């Protein structure tokens, strides 16, 4: 039997998709970057911190839990700076990219009808999927680096009265990147499985939202503490990151990420696309 040669990797498709998601990525990265500057501008002044914490105390206690809980207190600058990393707005921005990029690229092309043209060229389905994986994971890590860069710039702009352990924020950023990429990989599974963009986005958003709210509720409500381990957020627990690189948790996250990405790839490859 004559064996077919594997088509070369479609760098053109990778470039086209990169150009397509770049404006959205730049907007999200800028907002996340500015968020770190904004948080730092509040945190560097103890008077501002007290006002801010007093304001938080007026809100339902779950809001404070969502921003860091009891670790938020005057003088505890690193914990206060991490508000910029776990603020619901920042989470929303990450979610936007984690869900939007893979579903927009894969399901979007299928729904638009252009996937039929792409697959009629010398491009395998696996290569198409790998392009979406690379852009999703790469985009997520680039976003967390923008977030870390925001902290680095803020440290140069403001005097916090104590040295800021940037290595801690780098660890947090890398772990956040792993977590975000894992959610991105789950969104890839959804993108590979559903014909309609709304279905893929809906399921991915539901998975992410449930994880987030279970994590917050478990932290806030003592009777629900047992649920903390049931969410992916537990694997990037703030206190674990203080002491050093949480290699075990990072390994688990990387494994889940890999398994989700491979599962999505298998579904994508085995499924007849609704062209």
């Amino acid at each position, binding site marked *: 039997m004559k064996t077919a040669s594997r088509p070369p990797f479609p760098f053109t498709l990778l470039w086209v998709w990169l150009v397509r998601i770049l404006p959205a990525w730049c907007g999200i990265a800028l907002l996340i970057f500015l968020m770190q500057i904004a948080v730092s501008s509040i945190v560097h002044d103890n008077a501002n911190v007290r006002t801010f914490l007093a304001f938080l105390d007026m809100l339902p206690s779950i809001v404070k839990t969502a921003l860091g809980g009891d670790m938020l207190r005057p003088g505890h600058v690193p914990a206060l700076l991490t508000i910029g990393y776990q603020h619901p707005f920042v989470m929303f921005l990450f979610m936007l990219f984690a869900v939007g990029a893979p579903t927009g690229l894969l399901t979007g092309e299928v729904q638009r009808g252009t996937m039929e*043209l792409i697959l009629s060229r010398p491009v395998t389905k696996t290569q198409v999927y790998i392009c979406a994986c690379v852009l999703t994971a790469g985009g997520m890590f680039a976003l967390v680096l923008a977030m870390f860069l925001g902290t680095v710039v803020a440290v140069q702009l403001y005097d916090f009265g104590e040295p800021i352990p940037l290595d801690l924020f780098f660890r947090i950023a890398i772990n956040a990147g792993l977590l975000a990429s894992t959610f991105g990989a789950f969104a890839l599974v959804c993108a590979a499985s559903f014909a309609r963009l709304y279905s893929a986005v809906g399921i991915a958003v539901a998975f992410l939202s449930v994880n987030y709210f279970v994590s917050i509720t478990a932290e806030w409500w003592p009777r629900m503490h047992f649920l903390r381990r049931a969410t992916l957020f537990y694997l990037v627990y703030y206190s674990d990151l203080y002491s050093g690189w949480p290699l075990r948790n990072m390994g688990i996250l990387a494994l889940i990420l890999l398994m989700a990405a491979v599962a999505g790839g298998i579904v994508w490859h085995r499924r007849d696309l609704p062209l």
Partner: protein
Amino acid sequence: MKARDQSSMKAVEVKSLTKWYGSARGVEDVTFTIERGEIFGYLGPNGSGKTTTIRCILGLLKSSGGEVRVLGERIIRGRATAHARIGYLPGEFRIWGRARARRSLRILAAMGGRDHAMARRRELAERLELDLNRPVGDLSKGNRQKVAVIYAFQHQPEVLILDEPTAGLDPLMRQVALELIREAAQAGAAVLLSSHDLSEVSAVCGRAGILREGRLVEVAPISQIVQQGQRRLKVWFVDETLLPDMPSADLPDVRIIERQPGMLHVAYHGPSDAVLKWVAQFPVDRISTPQTSLEEAFIQYYRQPGAGRRPGSSGTAEGGRA
């Protein structure tokens, strides 16, 4: 297995192709081949399985059974086998609307390799009178179809799979598109032309396959398909008031199309002998045998199962030059 001799190799080989969508039949046991340089018409009403066959040939769908080879390479879903050598024009051509036509075509040409089609693209755009600098979304339906034609032909493929290539084109541009198809075949490309426009199929195709409810009911040269349809006879009698009754018991396969005093127009299947003998009973002034068109032959395949079907026809055939 030894590599096949290039010259004897069929460009497209479809063997017992079957595709089920759950319990719904797409196509069943479809077999045909297309040689290099041949234009093969692929006919059938809506939902008969034409697009399913095409997508299986391209490896966009996984077949439930059978085998497809293009240029000697076995097609496996999603593997893009031989796709660099295939030109495809989908029935519904949807491309990125915001991008200019030139950019979209360049992107698609460059996928899986370098874009070597610039000169050819320019030539095709000139022949089709299309401005490639306009965004595809701003183009009329006809002009978008021209983009589709350029997309299929720009990399000078060895196999062309065209689903309704002239849909939406004006008559002049239709002729240009048909010329492009003929030129490609003359240059050695194998062409599968799926179309509802039977005049177009009979104009360019040497052979055609007819699908009905997912099954290939005929694969034959166009001339043979036309002949296998009903034959027609128009008779003018010497006596202009004569209105003979057709003995339906003796001539069960004869159908009266038109009956006027002094004139009879009938259609029939099979040998002409019985009809002519019956007509010869009356003084005949003149007779004519109107040509059955491909369209009429095609309609007969759908009017009644088995009508127009060659006795012993298995629905398979080997290729012949266009």
